């Protein structure tokens, strides 16, 4: 995901500057890691035979959409993101990799989507938490209902905060969760983000049918394959997040810098254990 920079939005909802190159590199790596964790581009249960046109919401630098275009040359893939930088990068990549079936455009998914009714067979969204006020979710899935053709599929994938055995990393994760709560993006009235808990009800309440789910665990403990890339991800993410946390008034620059240094040290320790739970939920627009 990348986050809106639309000046009409409440300034406090800006998570990370969407036009930042470091954020773009982070999202590219995260895309690869996620697809790997999820065992592929689509859940095995989804029948792709009748899927021709695919939309990826908040596509960032286009990692997932480009992979889909490459794996399925006969399908059309469109990616939208609020960031001009990311969209320009994704379009350049599509040209460079000779993927004429992939195209990207700037679009703010918090507004009505600039696509006609019944124009996609599958809409995909990964990791929107962080840019979505809780109230925006039902509008978005209704918009997806409009642009999906009957029988089309929506698939949403979200995460909960990482759980680790590292005291400083836990404090940093708790601060990020707090930020998500302060900005009105958390569904949990307690200590969690809670987006995963409402995905199923969200799709069912919007009228989607055959709603199914699949859980994934991203293990980034020391010694496992994902450790290095998740460490890099965290290093960039929490650096870019610092100004936001300070601006929200839930920490000070001094405190968060010390916490950041300690958390990074703990994450590099050979005893670091961490896991992130991820949930994909998908459903079908009634035929």
């Amino acid at each position, binding site marked *: 995901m990348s986050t809106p920079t639309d000046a009409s939005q409440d300034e406090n909802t800006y998570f990370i500057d969407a036009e930042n190159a470091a954020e773009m590199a982070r999202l590219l790596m995260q895309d690869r890691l996620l697809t790997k964790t999820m065992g592929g581009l689509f859940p095995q249960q989804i029948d792709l035979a009748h899927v021709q046109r695919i939309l990826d919401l908040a596509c960032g630098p286009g990692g997932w959409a480009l992979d889909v275009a490459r794996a399925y040359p006969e399908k059309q893939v469109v990616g939208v993101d609020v960031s001009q930088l990311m969209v320009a990068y994704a379009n350049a990549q599509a040209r460079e990799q000779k993927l004429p079936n992939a195209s990207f455009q700037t679009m703010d998914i918090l507004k009505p989507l600039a696509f006609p009714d019944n124009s996609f067979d599958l809409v995909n969204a990964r990791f929107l938490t962080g840019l979505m006020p809780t109230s925006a979710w039902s509008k978005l899935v209704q918009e997806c209902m409009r642009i999906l053709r009957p029988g089309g599929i929506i698939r949403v994938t979200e995460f*909960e905060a990482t*759980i*680790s*055995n*590292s*005291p400083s990393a*836990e*404090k940093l994760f*708790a601060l990020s969760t707090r930020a998500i709560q302060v900005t009105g993006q958390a*569904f*949990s*009235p*307690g*200590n*969690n*983000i*809670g987006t*995963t*808990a*409402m995905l*199923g*009800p969200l799709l*069912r309440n919007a009228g989607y049918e055959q709603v199914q*789910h*699949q*859980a*994934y*665990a991203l*293990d980034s*403990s020391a*010694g*496992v394959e994902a450790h290095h890339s998740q460490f890099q991800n965290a290093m960039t993410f929490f650096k870019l997040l610092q100004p936001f946390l300070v601006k929200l008034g839930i920490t000070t620059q001094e405190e968060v810098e010390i916490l950041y240094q300690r958390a990074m040290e703990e994450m590099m320790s050979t*005893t670091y*254990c*961490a*896991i992130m*739970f991820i*949930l994909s939920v998908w459903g079908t627009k009634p035929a």
Partner: protein
Amino acid sequence: MSASNNASGDEKAYFIDAENVAEMARLAMQDRLTTKAMGGLLPEQANLSAIHDILDIACGPGAWALDMAQAFPQKRVTGIDISRLMVEYAQAQAREKDLHNATFQVMDALNPLEFADNSFDLVNARFITGFMSKAAWPLLVRECTRILRPGGILRLTECESPLTNSKGSERMYEMLAQALARADRIFSVDGRHIGITPVLGRLLHDAGFVAIQKMSHVIDYSFGTEAHAGCYQDVMTFLKLLQPFFVNVGVTTQEEANRLYLQTLEEMRSENFCGIFFFLTAWGMKPKEA
């Protein structure tokens, strides 16, 4: 799981009375829900042909072990639990269902296991966090290494607290994590999470297991789902039976616990209720060459 009431243990360690009939009914239902959510009894094990002797640790009323015995008549399944009540129930079930390949015995998983070296091909344990101290985990995993044959598999399934949009639930599970932290039951560093899922792989690794893998599962028990009614009953029993534990370790008063209990149940009955919980299965193999 059912919890230890070993008199030699710390009194505060009691999670729920293991000889309680309501807890037994809850565990039997939880077993069914869990197996369903996981997509089967051993969904991640591709090849079961080398597995003959199976042990289920803290088997409770024996649902998983009995289902295994029924599904695989040629395999031998043993279940152990601290609770005499649950073991007797499981044995009666095995007799009633004519499952000669299922046996159950009373045994405390916190003591050395009364089995010979190299006697099992697969050891299973689901949801045992409630009675396992941090110090007990590595000991139990090592005991499993001893009783497993070379090439045998240890399979651990544990969960984190549910995630909900209910204030009462969230507060109750926060109290559970804090109570478990005070009772030294969990790996969480600040009591926000149970914290067992991140360390399962490490526990296997440190005990010498190889080819360690993980798979996660989820139960959506939001209002309107198939699992809602079952989970509602589960929570109703579970949070009631947990109250003495909460009060005992001092994370709440009886009054507050009662109030939160009623609030949680009311919120769970609301048609807006969203709830989910994730759990993780981690498994590893005892090296073939010792």
